[in-house]
């Protein structure tokens, strides 16, 4: 029934494989490796790929991976135990060859495992056939019949109690009747004999639960009384509790504001000539700070800097003897045996077990949560690290803490490394060579900094010599279009159009408020293509992930316009919300696009990074959920506060005590 079974080393060499069906399985197993093991999702050991479901097991002592694959529609119960058995048998048999360091033995050895495998498979299949499904317990055998009815009543009010009691009794009656009769035919419209409330069983199978019509009427009356009285009850109770103060009879007069006038003309502060078609600001004093930033953003983005305390982390393993010296101080309070046992644990090879890692992992999980990583992501990460380290043999002079910490650090760096190339400038050049604009769409919830970071990114792009068209597709928020226009004017004043042969570097494409965003985006892209702009930056309105109509509108904008890059803007302050936001955004984009290859989020912009000192967990949550890289990091509100992500610095800040 199994499609395939492979045993391969972590270095990539397949040691033995069994193929039940024709067709190569390298593809599915590679997909398993890439999506599960490399993305640290090895908490659950089941992975579904197309029509195939795969279960796997990591052997960390000899660096092997065991994978079994079978059809998704089958439910085979013996697979887990079978995997364990195969692993044990394989290890026992080939222990000598596997223990060698270096790949020569793996290459030269031939692993004739076929017979053992068939035998184990036969045993596993027979064991499932052997145990028949257990027969159902009768009601008298169950625990419920042992309980008295009184113990099941919650006394919240006398009436309710009695009603529940009658219900329970009649339910008991029904169950017993059905148990006694087996699968007897239900007697519809059973006898309406007056069933006394506390008596025993008479098979009543009608829908009234064995109550007579009189009783039903009585219950209904009580119910209505209670409902009618219920409204009065709170007020009556409150009136009984405390004497209500008399309402002060007082007429509210109009409040007199000092500065306010009845004349609204005084309140109009708009400068009448701002609405004109001026595209650039004159170079006044206000632009002085802007001009200071001119020329700072050329080339690739700088990465986020941190005082790197990473040297301390790497020296940790070497200096663990010092840590070992520090540890006895803790255990000196314990008995002498404790000290001896701990020292013995340091020297010599010991393989890690789940119990050893449990306390360390709990502490690390709490540490991660304290650093603003989403709670379930922290637990999934810790489970995955546990799976990766289980059974691994530690060297001498390494403690469990240091091994687990190092493994967690490695997996965090691995998560933050981008899985694809992130080079926006190169892609823009490529699009320019193909004579089409490079379209970037920004989406996100309200107030995360989409428009601000859009302005920063356009500053970076024009510093590197590209021309930018900003499409104002936020047609909802008041002032959105004006905000973008202000940015456009400032940017153009810094890079005057005379540099560019008379054409302004940044232009704004807007159609006012209240229009359809997808239509504006489409027109903007067509405009950019006809006027040969290099980049189109599309700003959308902020929307909550639960707001279904807005999510549909966003999905439509993205599906219709097919942008080159869909960036999700998230702030670094967000905590567990990040998981919810990203999952729902991705789901909406995937569900509401008509094509079979929907565009989902391609990259993440992490904003407000300067507001967190080292609680940088949001970066981990976001990359873990989507698997997409963090393309930009926003560290402030001026134009040059745009950085790229430095994975090592972020992880060292995260693991700092």
């Amino acid at each position, binding site marked *: 029934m199994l499609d395939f079974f*492979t045993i*391969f*080393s*972590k*270095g*990539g*060499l*397949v040691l033995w*494989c069994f193929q039940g069906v024709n067709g190569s399985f*390298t593809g599915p*197993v*590679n997909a398993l*490796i*890439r999506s599960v*093991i*490399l*993305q640290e999702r090895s908490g659950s050991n089941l992975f579904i790929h197309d029509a195939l479901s795969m279960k796997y097991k990591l052997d960390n002592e000899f*660096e092997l*991976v065991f994978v079994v694959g079978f059809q998704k529609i089958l439910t085979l119960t013996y697979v887990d135990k079978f995997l364990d058995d195969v692993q044990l048998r394989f290890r026992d048999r080939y222990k000598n060859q596997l223990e060698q360091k*270096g*790949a*020569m033995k793996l*290459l*030269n050895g031939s692993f004739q495992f076929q017979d053992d495998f068939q035998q184990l498979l036969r045993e596993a299949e027979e064991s499932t056939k052997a145990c028949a499904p257990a027969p159902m317990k009768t009601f008298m055998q169950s625990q419920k019949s042992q309980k008295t009815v009184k113990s099941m009543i919650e006394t919240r009010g006398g009436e309710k109690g009695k009603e529940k009691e009658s219900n329970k009794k009649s339910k008991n009656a029904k169950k017993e009747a059905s148990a006694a009769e087996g699968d007897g035919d239900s007697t519809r419209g059973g006898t309406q004999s007056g069933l006394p409330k506390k008596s025993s069983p008479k098979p009543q199978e009608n829908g009234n639960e064995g109550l007579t019509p009189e009783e039903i009427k009585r219950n209904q009356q009580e119910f209505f009384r209670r409902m009618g009285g219920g409204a009065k009850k709170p007020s009556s109770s409150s009136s009984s509790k405390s004497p209500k103060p008399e309402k002060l009879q007082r007429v509210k007069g109009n409040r007199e504001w000092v500065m306010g006038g009845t004349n609204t003309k005084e309140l109009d502060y708009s400068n009448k000539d701002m609405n004109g078609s001026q595209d650039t600001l004159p170079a006044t004093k206000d632009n002085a700070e802007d001009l200071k930033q001119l*020329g*700072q953003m*050329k*080339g*690739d*983005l*700088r*990465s986020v*800097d941190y005082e790197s305390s990473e040297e301390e982390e790497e020296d940790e393993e070497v200096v663990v003897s010092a840590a070992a010296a520090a540890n006895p101080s803790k255990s000196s309070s314990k008995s002498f045996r404790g000290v001896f046992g701990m020292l013995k644990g340091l020297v010599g090879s010991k393989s890690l077990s789940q119990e050893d890692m449990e306390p360390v992992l709990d502490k690390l999980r709490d540490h991660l949560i304290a650093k603003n990583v989403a709670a379930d992501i922290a637990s999934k990460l810790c489970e995955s690290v546990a799976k990766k380290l289980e059974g691994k043999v530690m060297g001498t002079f390494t403690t469990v803490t240091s091994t687990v910490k190092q493994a967690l650090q*490695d997996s965090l*760096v*691995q*998560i933050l*490394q*981008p*899985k*694809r*190339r992130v*080079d926006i*400038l*190169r892609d823009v*050049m*490529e699009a320019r060579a193909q004579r089409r604009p490079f379209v970037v769409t920004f989406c996100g919830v309200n107030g995360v900094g989409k428009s601000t970071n859009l302005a920063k990114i356009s500053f970076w792009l024009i510093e*590197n010599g590209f021309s930018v068209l900003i499409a104002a597709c936020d047609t909802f928020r008041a002032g959105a279009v004006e905000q973008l226009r202000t940015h456009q004017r400032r940017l153009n004043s810094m890079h005057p159009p005379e540099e560019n042969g008379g054409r302004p570097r940044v232009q704004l494409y807007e159609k006012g408020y209240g229009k359809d965003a997808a239509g504006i985006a489409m027109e903007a892209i067509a405009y950019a293509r006809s006027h040969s702009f290099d980049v189109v930056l599309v700003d959308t309105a902020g929307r909550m992930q639960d707001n279904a109509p807005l999510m549909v509108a966003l999905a439509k904008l993205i599906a219709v316009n097919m942008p080159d890059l869909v960036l999700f803007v998230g702030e670094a302050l967000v905590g567990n919300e990040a998981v919810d936001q990203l999952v729902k955004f991705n789901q909406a984009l995937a569900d509401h696009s008509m094509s079979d290859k929907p565009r989902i989020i391609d990259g993440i912009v992490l904003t407000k990074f300067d507001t967190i000192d080292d609680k940088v967990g949001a970066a981990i949550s976001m990359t873990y959920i989507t698997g997409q890289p963090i393309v930009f990091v926003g560290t402030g509100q001026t134009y040059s506060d745009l950085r*790229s992500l430095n994975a090592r610095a972020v992880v060292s800040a995260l693991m700092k005590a």
Partner: protein
Amino acid sequence: MEAAVFQPFLDSIQKELQAQDPAVLAVLVALVVVIISIIFMKIVWGRKTTRSAVLLVGLCDSGKTLIFSRLLSGKFKKTQTSITDSSTIYSVKREKGCGFTLIDLPGHESLRPQFVERFKSAARAVVFVVDSAVFQKELRDVAEFLYSLLTDAEIVKNAPALVVTCNKQDITMAKSAKVIQQQLEKELNTLRVTRSAALSTQDGSTAGGTVYLGKKGKDFEFSQLPMKVEFVECSAKGYKAEDGEADIEQLEKCLARIS
């Protein structure tokens, strides 16, 4: 004058030695042993840092693990995506003498940087494996990886020999080594512009290395690099059936020349 300062010390030491005091003798012997062992360890560790490894790097699915298996045992083995590195001693065929350690690094994007980081200081030569059949699609990724290797400060300092192996030549659509070389040169030229524009204006740490590839003002060519660069073609799978011989003659010759 200094001799005068040392003279009383020397006199006292001589007196102690002549006195044959066991404690002083023991201390002196211990000192001598410590000094000798320090010198010895310095020599040993110094020798260890001489580079003796050949790294097999490349993008995911380019065939590094299969080349590794072919070079070492000549057999064809099924392979999966590597999660960790594999290393073993490799001795050049038909030649006795210095073998080196052949290290196969994983190519997956999330693992690549940390493994290259770990092993780059020990590299005597770097075999960069390229999948010639899908090269056109992956051109930019290949060029970016090559760029990051070539601008890494430590690699530039050590200047290990670079052998660009165009693998999978058994597929009919595979590009030849010449074509790959030309396209890589063009692509690295463009990358130079996008990445190194930062060097002149910024003084913070830049994303890539701080090295400028090739010569300024001229188009980039591999001959401008400080290290020896060679392009070879090979087919790890072999032109016949699976169990046939692999065509890695050129690669083996290159490796022999290096050692």
